[in-house]
């Protein structure tokens, strides 16, 4: 076939678009890591959380999270016996510096760490107009910063308030489950820094992961189950008042 100048003019833009797709789909280099062998999630053992804020600080350092924005944060709940549906909640600076002593009397206090739930049916990826945010084959919801328009639709669509717009890049940002670490065999920064083991990275596709035993033997809940997002952050001991 003779490729004329006219053919070239038609083919070049098509080839450029196709190449962009190839580049966009290229995962970060991690030899020996097979996407199809993992399905990442996280276990949060609430009774173990002491609200120290180590996880928030570690996340901010590891991922260069700007001040005032959070990929993970810790909430403190105070629930009284007579009004369990209206808890008093605080999270000063996302719990980064821990919590001051509670002034609330009576009832119960507990801490709830929050992060992206890496939903299997995530509303944020559904609404992205260009597919800049996506679910990786190993179950992590990620954002392609080079592709994100900064329209903020995903921030609106997340029921858990886990997304924000990074003022430096003007693109959507959120917890990546420290993807750059877990693909190299490490755990996340928040799990590594947790002094009580309240946060544990889990691989549901790994039959030897202790998560399987834990899920079988404990009462497990996800946040806002009525949202039907198939969240993959599992909470042990989650109180019904938690939003």
């Amino acid at each position, binding site marked *: 076939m003779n490729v004329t100048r006219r053919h070239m003019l038609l083919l070049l833009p098509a080839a450029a678009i196709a190449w962009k797709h190839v580049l966009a789909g290229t995962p970060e280099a991690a030899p020996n890591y097979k996407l199809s062998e993992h399905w990442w999630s996280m276990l949060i053992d609430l009774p173990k959380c002491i609200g120290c804020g180590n996880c928030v600080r570690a996340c901010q350092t590891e991922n260069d999270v700007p001040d005032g924005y959070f990929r993970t944060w810790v909430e403190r709940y105070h629930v009284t016996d007579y009004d369990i549906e209206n808890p008093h909640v605080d999270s000063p600076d996302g719990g980064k510096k821990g919590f001051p002593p509670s002034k609330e009397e009576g009832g119960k206090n507990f801490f709830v760490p929050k992060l992206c739930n890496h939903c299997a049916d995530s509303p944020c990826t559904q609404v992205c107009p*260009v597919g800049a945010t996506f679910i990786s084959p190993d179950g992590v919801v990620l954002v392609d910063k080079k592709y994100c*328009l900064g329209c*903020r639709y995903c921030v609106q669509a997340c029921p858990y308030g886990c997304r924000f717009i990074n003022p430096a890049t003007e693109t959507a940002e959120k917890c990546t489950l420290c993807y750059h670490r877990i693909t190299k065999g490490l755990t996340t920064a928040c799990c590594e820094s947790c002094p009580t083991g309240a946060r544990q990275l889990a691989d549901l596709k790994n039959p030897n992961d202790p998560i399987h035993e834990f899920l079988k033997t404990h009462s497990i809940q996800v946040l806002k189950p009525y949202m039907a997002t198939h969240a993959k952050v599992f909470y042990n001991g989650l109180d019904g008042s938690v939003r």
Partner: protein
Amino acid sequence: MPGVEGFMYPNEIELQWSVLIVLYPFLTGLVAGAFILASLERVFQVQEVKPTYRLALLTALAFLLVAPLPLQLHLGHPERSYEMYLTPHKTSAMAMFGFVYLWYLMAVLVFEIWLDYRRDIVVLSQSTTGWKRMIYRVMTLGSNNISEHALHVDERVGWVITLIGIPSAFLLHGYVGFIFGSIKANPWWSSPLMPVVFIFSAMVSGIATVMLIYMFVTWARKETIDMRCVDTIARYLLYTFIIDFGLEMLDLIHRIYESDESFRSLDFMVHTKLYVSHIVVQILLGTVTPITLLALTQVVRLGEMARKRIYALAGCLTLMGIFAMRWNVVIGGQLFSKSFLGYTTYKMGLVTREGLLMAIVLTILPLIILWGLVKLLPPWPEKNAGSLAGAAPAR
């Protein structure tokens, strides 16, 4: 934290969608409404509104040209917006924006205006001189045949385009409503009624705009306002407004009666942060008052001057009410926490990319464009009656 009451998830304190995103559904609503008013004459043979037909089309075009600007200014990376055309995400309602917009702009509005003005353009391309002649010659697109048969074909094709245009106008604004209504994370937005409410409120605002512009332009040209035309438009405005208000009340009553988990939080918001914009401006001043005024003209025999004043007042209040409705949807939907435990405050910038000044500029810009369009394509045939041998009379 200043401006925050109760508990917000820490990433929720800053509002994501600003006054520019309030402006976007407001502008597209005017487009859809103006077009539907134009279609009344073309498709539904409501002859009384004929004096506004061309003006309504030009108004729709002027506002449609500006409609994507608030979105572009709002994007973190406007230079990447073309990606929505190249790699649209199939499951995203927003991804359809570019296609719906282009379809409506090129296939419906520009095509219909061109067909309707073709005779005038050909006449003007031969009767004018200088740069104007150049512009009109380009606008003929090389089609200079204005024989009776050719104009008849234009008329038939134009009718078909208007027929396609009506569902397209519904699609354009219904889609904007769907962008909000399909967000299940936000109970203030999540409602299957949202697209329908948006369509009817669009019709209300578009009809009111064309009515006001027609009255103002006719007054400015020292011509006589065709009262039969304005009375008919006001009557359609009233009917559409009643349906729109009925739908909004249905949504409100449903929420109150159902009182789901979000109700307490939303109810508190409506009674505090949104009280002025929702209860006072949107419902009382912007809906109940104009409906009452318009209804008054239907049941009481009033003089011409009184009717004109009432229409002008009702039209202005209507536009204010519809703008408040867009404000309450967009801004109101971001003032409460998805934890239903707290509220934040919207702090509008003044001279910023998404501030008040920009919003004012973007509101005035369509009117400037409309002025240019009216100069280029006068909607009143009697003033530009150039004559060419063999030309059919202007419609």
